[in-house]
C-alpha cells in the first residue's frame, strides 16, 4: 500500500513509523524546517519538506499515482480540510482521513465533504462520558458516511422497559438493540432477551432518534 501522510507532528510521525514497520510505502510531508530535518535524520528519504496544501508539493509526494490513502494530520484544521479536498476531489484518492484538531470544527469537515475524520478530543470525551454517563446515553461510534451511530444506555430502575422482552419494546423503526451487559457479562440482544434495571444496552440507530430510544429504555 502507498500512503501520503501530511503533517509530521506526533500523530503523523508515529503513524509513519508504524506504516513503515508494517512494510508499507510512505511519504511524510512536513513544512517546518527544523522538524523536517529531525524526521529526515530518523526516517530518511521518505520525508519530504514542504507545505502539503500546495498542489506541487502533493504532486512531488506522488498524489497523482494516486496513493491508496492520504492522511491529513497537520495541527491546522483548515489545512487538513484543503489537503483532504485536493486528494479526494482533485486526485480521486480512494481513502482520505483527516484529523480534526478543534472539535468545534467537526461541522465544517462534514459540510465540505471530508467525511472520514478523527478527533482525539471528541474520542477522549466519549471515553469520559462512557465512565461517567450523566445523560443516560453515550455515543460510542459515529458512522458519518453510513448515517448510523452506536450508543450505550443504562436501563433505569423505573424504566418502562424493565422486565420486558426486546420484542415487546416500542422502539422506532431505525433502532436495533445490539447487546446487553449485565453484571459484567455481555450477550447479543435477541427478540426474547428480557431487559432488567441496571442493564447496559448497546444500540445502533439513525442519528436523531436518540431521545426516543432514551425514553423507551431509560424513561
Amino acid at each position: 500500500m502507498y500512503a501520503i501522510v501530511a503533517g509530521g507532528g506526533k500523530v503523523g510521525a508515529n503513524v509513519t513509523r508504524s506504516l513503515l514497520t508494517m512494510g508499507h510505502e510512505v511519504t511524510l510531508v512536513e513544512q517546518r524546517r527544523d522538524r523536517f530535518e529531525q524526521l529526515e535524520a530518523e526516517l530518511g528519504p521518505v520525508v519530504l519538506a514542504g507545505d502539503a496544501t500546495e498542489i506541487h508539493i502533493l504532486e512531488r509526494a506522488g498524489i497523482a499515482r494516486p496513493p491508496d490513502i492520504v492522511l491529513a494530520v497537520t495541527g491546522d484544521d483548515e489545512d487538513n480540510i484543503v489537503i483532504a479536498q485536493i486528494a479526494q476531489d482533485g486526485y480521486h484518492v480512494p481513502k482520505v482521513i483527516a484529523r480534526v484538531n478543534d472539535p468545534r470544527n467537526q461541522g465544517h469537515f462534514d459540510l465540505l465533504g471530508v467525511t472520514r475524520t478523527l478527533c482525539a478530543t471528541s474520542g477522549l470525551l466519549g471515553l469520559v462520558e462512557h465512565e461517567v454517563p450523566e445523560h443516560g446515553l453515550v455515543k460510542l461510534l459515529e458512522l458519518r458516511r453510513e448515517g448510523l451511530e452506536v450508543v450505550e444506555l443504562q436501563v433505569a430502575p423505573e424504566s418502562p422497559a424493565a422486565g420486558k422482552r426486546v420484542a415487546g419494546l416500542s422502539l422506532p423503526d431505525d433502532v436495533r438493540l445490539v447487546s446487553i451487559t449485565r453484571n459484567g457479562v455481555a450477550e447479543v440482544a435477541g427478540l426474547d432477551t428480557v431487559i432488567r434495571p441496571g442493564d447496559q444496552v448497546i444500540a445502533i440507530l439513525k442519528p436523531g432518534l436518540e431521545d426516543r430510544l432514551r425514553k423507551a429504555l431509560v424513561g
Partner: protein
Amino acid sequence: MNAVIVGCGRVGSGVAKQLAEEGWDVTCIDEDEGALARLGEWRGGFVVGHGMDLDVLVRAGIASADAAVVATNGDNTNVVVGQVIQRLYSPACVVVRVLDPRRAAFYAERGLRTVCPTQTAIATLTDVVRSCEASVL
C-alpha cells in the same frame, strides 16, 4: 446592501472602506481588535473573532448578507470559510482571496469565486514587459 468582510488586513480593510463609501452596510471580522484602526473613522460593524466560528459569522450578520469577502492572510482559512459561507448562507456573492495560483484555480473549478492577486501580478508584470518590448521595437 449588506457585506461581511472576513479578515481586516490591508486588503480586507480596503475593500470594506470602498464598499462603505459606495453606500454598503459593511461589517468586518478580525481576530485582532487592533485591525479596527485600519478602517479609520468607521461607521460600519466590527466583530472580533475567527471566521471559522459560526457564531462570529452570525453576529456579523452573515445570514442577511448580500456579499461576503474572505481575505484573511491564510489561503486555506479563506477557501474553507468561503465554502462554509457559500453552503450554509448562500449570499448572492462570495469572493475569496487565494494567493497560491494553483489552489485558486482548483477551487475556482469547483464553483468558488476566487481572486488570486499573485496571478494578477504575474499577468500585469508580464504585460508591462511586453509593452516595453513593443515600444523598443
